[in-house]
């Protein structure tokens, strides 16, 4: 096994009271096999170079979710990341998760993250929509999202959470899908109604960052898309997000292009559009407002073909439950 000497550039955050921090970057040199994990490097530094270096860790096997931190520009589990795979010119930069308050060095305050998870009522509920019997494939939808270990990588790198702290976030939404897609769950519609409210499932911008950074292949954004599909199927179409999606769909299907002017009207209504008038005038000055008249894309037939394929292969959002049989 080949060894290398790596430079770890680590963000140190020392609490100085009243939620303030003395933040600085400190470098440590460590010689390790290239296949060692970032966590073992941090442990080596803590044991032999600087006992004050603070980070959370526990299982060392990517199942407890303690050691999520920013490593070379992405939030990753330190125990699952090999040093050789993230070093740039033998330098590895390590910092705390973002979008969340720091406690000390690489340890963040995990309470706001779990507060968001609590908001989705993260437990199975009895109710009118509970199936009485499950089949072999009953958990095909559930199994993807129950891989989640609540490490927070997705939330730390979520581009929407960065600009909108009120956003529920990918982990909480994936957790919600875990129940909505469970045949035994009795309150699926009630959950979808909650998720249709502002800052919940319609606030995701579908940037796919959460899918990319998730160390457990949970694919939170896919769960969010499935939740939206189910919401629309249940007739939950009155929120801004749903209306925007439907208007978008209508434009593309008919014209192959968007009419931003009417799209706005259809999404947020007349009041909402008027409220945005200031921004609109600003945009107009810069020449950013397209023509308010309908305009069509060329080769609409090609588009029709895409729609045909999508309609023949719909997104699989079905919960696989047996027929509800009276006991």
């Amino acid at each position, binding site marked *: 096994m080949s060894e290398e000497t790596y430079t770890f550039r680590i963000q140190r955050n*020392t*609490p100085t009271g009243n939620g303030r921090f003395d933040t600085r970057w400190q470098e440590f040199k460590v010689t390790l096999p290239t*296949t060692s*994990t970032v966590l073992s490097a941090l*442990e080596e530094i*803590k*044991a*032999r170079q*600087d*006992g*004050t270096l*603070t*980070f*959370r*860790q*526990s*299982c*060392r*096997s*990517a*199942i*407890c*979710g*303690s050691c999520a931190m920013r490593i070379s520009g992405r939030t990753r589990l330190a125990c*699952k990341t*090999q040093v050789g795979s993230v070093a740039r010119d033998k330098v590895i930069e390590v910092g705390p998760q973002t979008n969340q308050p720091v*406690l*000390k060095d690489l*340890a963040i*305050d*995990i*309470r706001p993250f*779990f507060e968001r998870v*609590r908001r989705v*009522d*993260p*437990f*199975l509920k009895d109710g009118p929509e509970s199936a009485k*019997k*499950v*089949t*072999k494939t*009953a*958990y095909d939808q*559930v*199994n993807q999202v*129950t*891989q989640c*270990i*609540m490490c927070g990588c997705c939330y730390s790198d979520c581009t929407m959470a960065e600009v909108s702290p009120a956003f529920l976030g990918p982990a909480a939404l994936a957790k919600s899908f875990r129940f909505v897609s*469970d045949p*035994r769950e009795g309150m699926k519609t009630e959950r979808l109604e909650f998720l249709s409210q502002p800052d919940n499932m319609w606030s995701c911008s579908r940037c796919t960052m959460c899918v990319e950074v998730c160390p457990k292949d949970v694919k939170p954004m896919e769960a969010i898309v499935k939740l939206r599909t189910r919401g629309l199927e249940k007739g939950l179409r009155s929120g801004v997000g749903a209306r925007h999606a439907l208007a978008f769909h209508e434009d593309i299907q008919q014209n192959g292009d968007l009419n931003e002017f009417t799209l706005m009207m259809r999404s947020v209504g007349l009041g909402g559009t008027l409220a945005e008038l200031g921004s609109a005038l600003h945009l107009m000055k810069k020449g950013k407002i397209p023509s308010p008249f309908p305009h069509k894309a060329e080769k609409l037939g090609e588009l029709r073909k895409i729609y045909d394929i999508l309609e023949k292969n719909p997104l699989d959002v079905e919960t696989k439950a*047996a027929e509800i049989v009276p006991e």
Partner: protein
Amino acid sequence: MKSHDLIIVGAGLSGMRAALEGVRANIDVAIVTKIHPLRSHSCAAQGGINAAVDPRDSWESHAFDTVKGSDYIGDEDAIQIMAREAPIVVLEMDRMGTPFSRVEDGGIAQRAFGGANFDRTCYSADRTGQVLLHTLWEQLVKSKVPVYEECSVQKLVVDGAGHVAGVVALDIKSGEVFGIRGKGVLIATGGYGRVYASTTNATTNTGDGMAIALRAGAPLGDMEFVQFHPTGLRTSGILVTEGARGEGGYLINKDGKRFMDKYAPTKKELASRDVVSRAEQTEILEGRGVNGAIFLDLRHLGRQKIIERLPQIRELAIDLEGVDPIDNPIPVRPTNHYSMGGIRTDKLGFSPLKGLFAAGEAACVSVHGANRLGGNSLLDTIVFGKVTGAAASKYVQDQKLPEFPQGAVKEVEDMIGELLRRPDTGVKPAAVQEELSNALNSYVSVFRTAEIMQKAAEVIPVVRAKFKKISLQDTSRQFNIELVRAIELGHLIDLAESIVKGALARTESRGAHFRNDFPKRDDANWRKHTLAHWDPKKEEVVLSYEPVRTLGIPEYEPKERVY
């Protein structure tokens, strides 16, 4: 001062399952845990949970396998409770929401595990512990049980009459030391794997609950029985589930040959863990290993089965050993895994110390005796979380709140304050822990002799003396992990002493405790439990013994264990 009827220490499967019983009994129950509940090491259990849920199986058969697996030192009353309750608690978990893998007709899927006469291990792919843990946390959130998160319990407080009166804890986040009054304390802090240098356990598995109970006057039972899992990854010691062999995986040596038929002709790779670990170690010692490891070969299972049933194992092998089991065998070796010993209790989880209860790996009930069967630890945590949680909840309803002794909080505060203010001595806690855990690894392992174990016995007073001289670099109060680990090191030393003394004294071979100098089981002299007590005057561990709780059932009579 904060106060609750029942204080549960630890938020893994046992602790959370016990808390739900407190809720059911309508008492004021709270959990204190040094890590967030979802970080608990229960999540790392992979393979499954044993329960006779199939009509062709029976709880009696499960109980028999467990008695035999324990090498006839498990307490038979407790084993019967566990086997009988197993199908009930598994179906309860299913109803709470655990997504168990299913068979065609929707029933819970089961796989083969070591030492069992039936394919009795219910599972959810290879992450059974994780889904069980998340399910119980969901129920905990639903029940609104107060949880003191990231608060490490430092001391079990006992009143003048010898009754437990609460705990003193350190809030890791703020550094504040505080007391919690209680009518009862239930310890569910899991095992102490970090006593060993190479272990499947999390770095937070430092046996804190066992150690504070020992110091408060409760005895620890059977600490010499330490399980070595046959398949820890060579480099990191990370667990590869027994389910990999349950699904048909082979163990092979450097010549690519299966060897288990030599050691366990019938069960082969699925003999009990003590037998398989000794077989592997023998292969390695006789020169048929590679760099201290033999290999787990899954290639013949095929890509599909590996991806469907063992996805996490595949990821871990790739990430941590650089081996994809679809194409190559995984290097593994016997690795410290589980403590059969723990706080000695009766079949309901009562310890001899009034008001103290224990459940799960922290307890020695004892359902595992000298060797635990795979799939029985998740079961133990949930059955005895439930049984002990219910017993403790009932107990505290009849109790008055004991007086919390003056000075208990200050005593802990002073200890921490002194440690933080201590001038630099150059003795680093991490180095002291390495010395201790290397000694246990080298001298109190799969094969033991008096001569070799004596070396470990000699290391303990040396380490204890060094521990008194350690100094910290981090002298701050907030989130001081160096401080937390230094305190844990004190716990590890007490537990190591209990293990070494128990093992030296037991001049026989039974279950996981194998002595080359006493290779036979000796039922006439040693079919009894070891109790380790803390002697505050001598400042060391002393031993006593008590009989096994037997039921006089002819099938449970000791026989030679053959697999």
